[in-house]
């Protein structure tokens, strides 16, 4: 294995990690801040991909505009779902269980609605103009769109870090992660915050879906494959922890990438292997965030 191949596999892993992170970050955000486990997060990813397809292929919009449309659209759907449905079960006994069931029902409903609107054909997008080619760095040829995604991922991490550490909203978000009730006593509109955070989280899912659309294909049910991988990411990183999601995605992406290069026969089991090892030694994930309620 020569050094340029290792560098190449590393970049492949980074690319995979970035997309994983973009999806998982929304999942972990709403869990961390709102203590809601959104099982339907993958469906918002799928919705984002379909909305981007709608904007590009049907309305002939510019790709980046379509990404915006997809994020905002998924965010609005998310806020509606929170406002109309999820909100009604906060504070109920066994809330966690009912959350999972309710968001599970979202998966079923969204899958069929997507089928009604867009049919069952596979949909995909062309790469945006200017990013269809290949870039050369250090003698390695990398598709420029892949590099762009890695770059966007880094920008998101930096923005998230700034927001979480430097702004009032970030502090509110972190405070909420510690104690949902306490926010109310600080004079913050808790229900509104929840709706907005849920909207941001689902918008991030939609954003990831739109960005992935030129690389993948979507069809009804595409959300499920994504949610399981994201789940592994957040389990490894620590549920509700933003940096955990980042680290989890990175580990998963790189482990997979090098597993493919070294043990292609068994590559598909490595994600689960990493997860099980994490669970055995650190059941709360690598970044054990918030007070985990251990009975």
């Amino acid at each position, binding site marked *: 294995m020569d050094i340029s191949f290792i560098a190449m596999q590393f970049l492949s892993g980074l690319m995979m990690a970035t997309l994983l992170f973009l999806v998982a970050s929304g999942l972990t955000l709403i869990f961390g801040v709102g203590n809601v486990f959104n099982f339907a997060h993958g469906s918002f990813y799928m919705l984002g991909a379909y909305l981007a397809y709608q904007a590009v292929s049907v309305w002939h919009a510019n790709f980046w505009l379509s990404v915006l449309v997809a994020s905002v659209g998924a965010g609005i759907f998310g806020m509606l779902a929170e406002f109309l*449905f999820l909100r009604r079960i906060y504070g109920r006994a066994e809330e966690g269980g009912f959350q*999972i069931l309710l968001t599970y*029902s979202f998966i079923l409903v969204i899958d069929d609605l997507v089928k009604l609107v867009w049919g069952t054909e596979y949909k995909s997008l062309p790469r945006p103009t200017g990013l269809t080619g290949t870039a050369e760095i250090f003698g390695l040829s990398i598709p420029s769109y892949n590099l762009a995604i890695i770059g966007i991922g880094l920008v998101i991490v930096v923005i998230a870090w700034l927001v979480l550490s430097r702004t009032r909203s970030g502090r509110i978000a972190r405070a909420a992660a510690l104690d949902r009730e306490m926010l109310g006593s600080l004079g913050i509109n808790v229900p509104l915050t929840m709706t907005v955070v849920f909207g941001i989280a689902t918008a991030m899912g939609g954003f990831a879906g739109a960005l992935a659309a030129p690389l993948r294909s979507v069809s009804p049910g595409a959300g499920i494959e994504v949610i399981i991988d994201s*789940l592994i990411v957040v389990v490894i990183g620590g*549920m509700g922890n933003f940096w955990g999601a980042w680290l989890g995605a990175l580990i998963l992406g790189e482990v997979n990438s090098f597993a493919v290069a070294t043990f292609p026969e068994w590559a*598909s089991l490595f994600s689960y292997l990493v997860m*099980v090892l994490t669970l055995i030694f650190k*059941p*709360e994930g690598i970044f054990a965030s918030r007070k985990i309620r251990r*009975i």
Partner: protein
Amino acid sequence: MKKSLFNKDIIFWGLFVVVFGSVPFLKQSDYHLMLANSILIWGMFAVAFNMLFGVTGMLSFGQALYYGLGAYSVGLVVKNYGPSLFLPAIGLGVVLAVITSILVGLLVIRLSGVYFTVLTLAFGQLAWQITFRWYHFTGGDDGIQGIMPSGVLENHTVYYYFTFVLVILAIWFLRRVANSPMGLVLRCIRQNPERVRFLGRRVRRNQLRIYVISSFFAALAGGLMTGVTNSIHPDMFYWTTSGEVILMAVLGGIGQFFGPFIGATVIIIIQDVVGARTEYWSLIIGLIMMVMVLGMPRGLVGEIRGLKARFAPGRMSRG
């Protein structure tokens, strides 16, 4: 109070024995027998699952792991060593499920709430991936077909009554557990685990016990199901299988002992009716689930009892 509880049980058992006992005489076709057989098996699975969720408050999204384990034990044994080992294979599946659930349980019960749910889901998916991937041994995505019980059990009616008796025993046993001191402790764990610790009880030990018991019956359900559909597939391990049993419990009512059985009945009949008439079954199941969670969290049985209690003198209680 005590007496009315007894009465309710009698009503259920009476209806249960009469309805399910007479299916082989009233059926119009083999299909009805098969439908009734699946209701029995899923009903048992759902009641056992609810000992975890409804009673102890542990939402496992990974009971498919044990269901699949039971089914694959039977499938692989019958495929490799012949159908005469059908019954011992069910036993093997159950034993494997007990061993696995102890090992997995020790890992997952360290966490509670949503963390617990996600971990069980992760382990279920791990089992699915292994079954799917290890095709030399499990047949992979092709599954295993033609798994028939041998001897008298080959006859569908005999097999039906065999399942019928086992399910009666299983539900009777679980009913006893629910009414036993341990059942009381489990309900208390759901409501206030801290206080249970201050009663001098080990919370996790009790959670592990019910996790193992519930998994035992999940594996039994999986093993029995092979005799009905004669084929198995990695999807039995997939999270949607766990989702289905949860849906049954919630639909019937997680606060009611027999609720999940009713839920299983309703779901299987809905699937049969809806599936035959529209391809939009997932929309319909999704809407039903949404309505149940938002509007009728106590489930069909719970809501009916709630209504009755409203019009009847005396107070209603949960459980």
